[in-house]
């Protein structure tokens, strides 16, 4: 069984039934998950910031880092597994985007990440069917490719499914 571990700003996809796609400790970062029922492919991007205009060079080197470059990059990656390049037929799920307690507008990066992602998904005619966003805790995400099952965990809480 293979494991695809995605760090901050990474994205990846798999259609091998034994694989798990994972990302650890999402704070204000948001994990964008694409499940393609037709090809049984799972894709995920670990998005750190909403907008690539602050550093174009970083966006070229690591497109998964920013919401506006991560989604096109992940879709392109998934076409290698026979998925539709505009994401047609894919199931979209989002998680992460936590905030520290008593936060103010400036520090709500989690919320801004989620909003930016939704806006870009919208431009592709896509929308999330399930989301687990916000709160004051970090999340670890494990997706089993064979079942398309997404398990979330956070220290001190029982695991839950998305």
């Amino acid at each position, binding site marked *: 069984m293979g494991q695809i571990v995605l760090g901050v700003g990474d994205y990846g996809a798999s259609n091998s039934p034994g694989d798990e796609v994972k990302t650890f400790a999402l704070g204000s970062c948001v994990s964008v998950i694409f499940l393609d029922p037709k090809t049984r492919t799972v894709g995920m991007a670990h998005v750190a910031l909403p907008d690539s205009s602050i550093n174009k060079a970083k966006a070229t080197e690591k497109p998964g880092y920013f919401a506006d470059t991560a989604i096109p990059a992940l879709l392109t990656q998934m076409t290698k597994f026979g998925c539709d390049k505009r994401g047609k037929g894919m199931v979209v799920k989002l998680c992460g985007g936590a905030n*520290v307690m008593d936060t103010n507008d400036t520090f709500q990066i989690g919320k801004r990440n989620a909003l930016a992602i939704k806006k870009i998904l919208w431009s592709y005619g896509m929308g999330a069917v399930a989301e687990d966003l916000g709160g004051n805790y970090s999340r670890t995400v494990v997706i089993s490719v064979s079942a398309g099952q997404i398990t979330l965990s956070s220290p001190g*809480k029982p695991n839950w499914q998305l």
Partner: protein
Amino acid sequence: MVKQISQEELQKIVKSVPMLSPSASKLLQLTSKADHDLVDVVNLVRNDANLTARVLKIVNSAAFGLINTITSIDRAISYLGERIIVGIAVGDCAGKLFEKELSGYESARGDLWKHDLRTAIAAREVVTQSGADISSELAFTAGLLHDIGKSLISDYLQGSVTDAVEMITAEEGFDYLDAEEKLVGFDHTRAGYELAKAWQLPNELAEVILHHHEPSNASEEYRTLVYAVHLGDNIAMMGGFGTGSDSMRYKLDQQYTDYIRIGSKTLATIMLNVDIEFEKLKGSLTGSGEEN
């Protein structure tokens, strides 16, 4: 089973921790003064053969990608910057504390050091990007040390994570500091402050350790520094580098806007710079050399 730590026990724990080496201690004293001279830093390092060897090894490590080998300690220090030198000196003698597995927070070995390093880089970035009128080097050092108290109380918190999280969820306004205090009698800032006193750290660093979650309680003269570390700490957690169960479970002290000006775009730049700088430094600065 979690048990309360008495004042006497806390003193015992503090005494069981290794002391800082004389050069690390002097470096912390020296570099926390606003008007110190780099020459004095160089002389301090030069007088400590082990530290000199470590600094030269690090500056010539692959992470810095130098074409020509640096063999003189003054060139190494001016290249690395004094904050890195302080980081190496503190990491060398207190490495075990930083590398400790924080099982009381369900946090793996090395997580604390990574969190501290991210906080240090973020605190420095907060100072430089906001133009705050304090030393960015000092903010870095303070960031490295801010959570040292977690190593002291972690063992006593074993098995408490679910309870701590439930307390915070159940009670409005309750954060992880409150949970620590309720569970073992001291929160990590109080425990860290006791160690800061035993290590005879300069006042500004001791104040950061004690007040980094509530900077408005710090004395006015150090408050900007404490806010810089407070924001750096939050930025480290937001970036996914907390220390397990307590990550994101603290309050942002809203009064920071009176001391530090950053907008959302600057904050995004800071978060990005922290990621870039962390990748560069993480291999060279670990206390026990685990990742070297």
